[in-house]
C-alpha cells in the first residue's frame, strides 16, 4: 500500500467501520458536505449518505447528547468534536451520561468521540489544548491517543468496535505524517508499544509527543545515550506491564506530554511507577510538559511546549541522579 497520512488513515478507518457495520453513524460540525475542517471525514457522506454521515447544528453538548440517545436506539455513534478547546461544552454529557449511563441502566454506550488535540499548529486560542486528563479521571471511559497513521487506523477500528465509550484523541499536528499502513493489523485498546529500543532511560509519550521523544532519542544517540521510547497509545486503561518491562532495563523514566504538568496524566504514570516499580527506579520519575499557564499565543507555543532540549535535560538529570 502507498504511504498515507494520518488524516487519510483515520478517514479510511471511518470508511471501513461505516462499511462494516450499518449501525455506525458519523456526525458533527461540518463533517458532511465539507468533510470536516481537517478533511478527516472527506467523501464519507457521498459514499454512505446523509442519514449515516451528517452535519449537526453547532452545539457540542447536544452532539454528545444525541449520541447517547442514538446508542440507546442501538446505533454506534462516532461524533466529532471539531477542536479540543470546544469539548468543554460537552463535558457534562460526557462525564454525567456517556461515562455513567451503563452504570445506571445496564445499557452499553458504544460511542467513540473523536477529538483533534494538541498544539504546534500556530492556531488562535482554544485550538491547541490537551484535555486528556479530564477524561482519564472519569471512570467508565476509555481514552486513547495514537501517534502514527497505522495506529490511528487500527485504534479507531478497535474504539468503534468496543462496546464501551472511547475518547479518541487525534494529534492534529501529526495529521500529515505519512507511513505505509497495514489495515489487517489489530491494535487492542490498552496496549502500549515500544517505539524505539534503548537501555539508558525510558521516555514515555503519547500522541503528538511520541515523534518528539523519538527525535530526542536520535539526538541522545549522538552523545552515546541510549533511550527507549514507549508510545502509550492508550491512556485509560494504561499498559503498566510494558512500562515496567522497560524500566527493568533502564531504571529511569521521563514522561512527556503537551498538557500542563501539574495535575497532568504524567502524574498518574509517575505514581503508578512508584507503586509498582519503586525498586526498579534509580532516579525519580521526571515529567516534561506544558507550563502551568494557559496555552499561550501561537508565537510563544514553541517555548511553552516540550521540545527535544527539555526532554534531554530531564534525561540528563535522571542519568546523573544518585
Amino acid at each position, binding site marked *: 500500500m502507498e504511504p498515507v497520512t494520518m488524516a487519510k488513515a483515520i478517514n479510511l478507518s471511518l470508511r471501513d467501520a461505516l462499511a462494516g457495520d450499518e449501525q455506525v453513524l458519523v456526525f458533527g460540525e461540518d463533517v458532511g458536505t465539507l468533510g470536516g475542517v481537517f478533511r478527516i471525514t472527506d467523501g464519507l457522506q457521498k459514499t454512505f449518505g446523509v442519514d449515516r454521515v451528517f452535519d*449537526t447544528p453547532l452545539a457540542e453538548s447536544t452532539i454528545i447528547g*444525541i449520541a447517547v440517545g442514538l446508542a440507546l436506539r442501538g446505533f454506534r455513534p462516532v461524533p466529532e468534536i471539531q477542536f479540543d478547546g470546544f469539548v468543554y461544552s460537552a463535558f457534562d454529557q460526557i462525564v454525567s451520561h456517556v461515562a455513567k449511563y451503563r452504570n445506571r441502566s445496564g445499557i452499553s454506550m458504544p460511542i467513540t468521540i473523536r477529538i483533534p488535540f494538541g498544539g504546534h499548529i500556530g492556531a488562535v486560542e482554544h485550538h491547541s489544548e490537551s484535555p486528556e486528563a479530564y477524561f482519564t479521571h472519569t471512570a467508565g471511559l476509555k481514552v486513547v491517543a495514537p501517534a502514527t497513521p497505522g495506529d490511528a487506523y487500527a485504534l479507531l477500528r478497535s474504539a468503534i468496535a*468496543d462496546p464501551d465509550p472511547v475518547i479518541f484523541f487525534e494529534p492534529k499536528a501529526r495529521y500529515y505524517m505519512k507511513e505505509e499502513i497495514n489495515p489487517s493489523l489489530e491494535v487492542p485498546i490498552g496496549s502500549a508499544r515500544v517505539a524505539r529500543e534503548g537501555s539508558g532511560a525510558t521516555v514515555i509519550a503519547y500522541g503528538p509527543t511520541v515523534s518528539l521523544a523519538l527525535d530526542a532519542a536520535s539526538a541522545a544517540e549522538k552523545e552515546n545515550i541510549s533511550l527507549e521510547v514507549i508510545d502509550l497509545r492508550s491512556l485509560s486503561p494504561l499498559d503498566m506491564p510494558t512500562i515496567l518491562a522497560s524500566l527493568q532495563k533502564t531504571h529511569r523514566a521521563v514522561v512527556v506530554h503537551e498538557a500542563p504538568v501539574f495535575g497532568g496524566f504524567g502524574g498518574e504514570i509517575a505514581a503508578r511507577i512508584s507503586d509498582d516499580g519503586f525498586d526498579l527506579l534509580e532516579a525519580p520519575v521526571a515529567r516534561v510538559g506544558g507550563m502551568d499557564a494557559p496555552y499561550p499565543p501561537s508565537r510563544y507555543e514553541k517555548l511553552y511546549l516540550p521540545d527535544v532540549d527539555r526532554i534531554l535535560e530531564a534525561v540528563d538529570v535522571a542519568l546523573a541522579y544518585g
Partner: protein
Amino acid sequence: MADVVQVVGTDDPVRPLFTAAGELKADARNGLGLDAAALRDLYQKMILIRRADQEALNLQRQGELGLWGQYLGQEAIHVGAVAALEANDWIFPSYREFGMAMCRGVDPAEMLTWFRGLSHGPWDPRKYAFAPLAVPVATQVPHAVGFAMGSRLRGSDDVVLGTFGDGATSKGDWHEAMNFAGVFKAPVILLCQNNHWAISVPLAKQTAGSIAERAPGYGFPGIRIDGNDVLGVFAAVRAAAERARRGDGPYLIEAMTYRMGAHTSSDDPTRYRLDSELQTWSAKDPIARYRSWLQGQGHLDDAAAAAIDRAAETMAEQMRSRLRAAVPAPAGEAIFDRVYERPPGPFIEEREEFEASLEGT
C-alpha cells in the same frame, strides 16, 4: 394563560382541541374515544400514584429513604401523558417522574431503592421503554431527541416523550435539544411540567418569556395547556404523538401545574412561598376535579371509588414491606458492576483487590 402560538405553514392538530386559555374544548373532551372503563382507569392511576407519593414521603420521614421528591399535584400530567402513548414509545424523565414510571409498570418498591441509596438504576429501561432518571437538569432532553432521530433513521413509527420542569428550560441543553429536534424533524414530544417553581425560584425569575412560545423559534408548534386536567394532557400528547408518528416532527407542550409539596424532603418551602398560593392551586387539584367530572358523567359510583382507594392501600402496604425487605447487593457488585461491558485489566484488578479486602474483614 397566554394564547397558544402557531408556526405559519405547520399543521397543528393540538391547537384546535383547546381554547385560547389552554382548556380542552367540550367537544374534544367528548370525542376522545375513551370508554367508561378507560376513563376510570385514568382516575385509578392518579389515585395509585398519589398514594405511592404519600407512602414514599412517609418512608422518608421514617428514615427508610434518604430523600423523596414529591410530585403531588402533577398526577394529571404523569397519568395523561403515559396513557396517550404506545407502550414502546420511550419516555425520558428527569427525577420527579415516578408516577410516570408506575404507569409504565415499574414496581414502586424497586424504584424506591434509588432513593434508598441502593441503586442508580433499579429498572431495565428497555423493558419499560422508560429511561433512567436524569438528575443533572435538562440533560435528558438531548437523549430524547437523539433517540427520536434514531427512530426516524430506523424507519420505525415509534415516538419519544422527553419531559422536564420549567427550570430546565433555562439550560443550554434544553435549547440545543429543541433546535436539534426542529432541524432533524425528530418524532419527539417535549413536555414541560411547569409547576411554577424550581426549588425556590419562581417562574417569573426563571424566564421573562413564555416557554410554549419558544417552539416556533425552533420551527415547530407549541402550546400551553391546563396541566391539571388529565384528559387535556391526554388529548394534547396523543395528538402531538400522532402528528410525530406521521412524520411531521416535534411538538412542545407546556402543561401548567403546581408543585404542591416541597421541592424534596430536604426542602422547606415556607422560606420562599406563600400559603395563599397553595390554597389557590388546591382548588384546582387534578384528582378532585376529575373525580367530580367522572361522577357527573355517571362513570364512578361510591363503591368503585372505595374499591380504588382500597387498591391504593394494598399497594402502599406492599411498597412498605417490599422496600424494607430490599436486600443490598454485595458491595463489590454494587460499586463495580455495569461500569464497563468489556472491563479493562486494571479495573478488574482493583475490583479483585477490593473484594479480597472485604473478605479479610
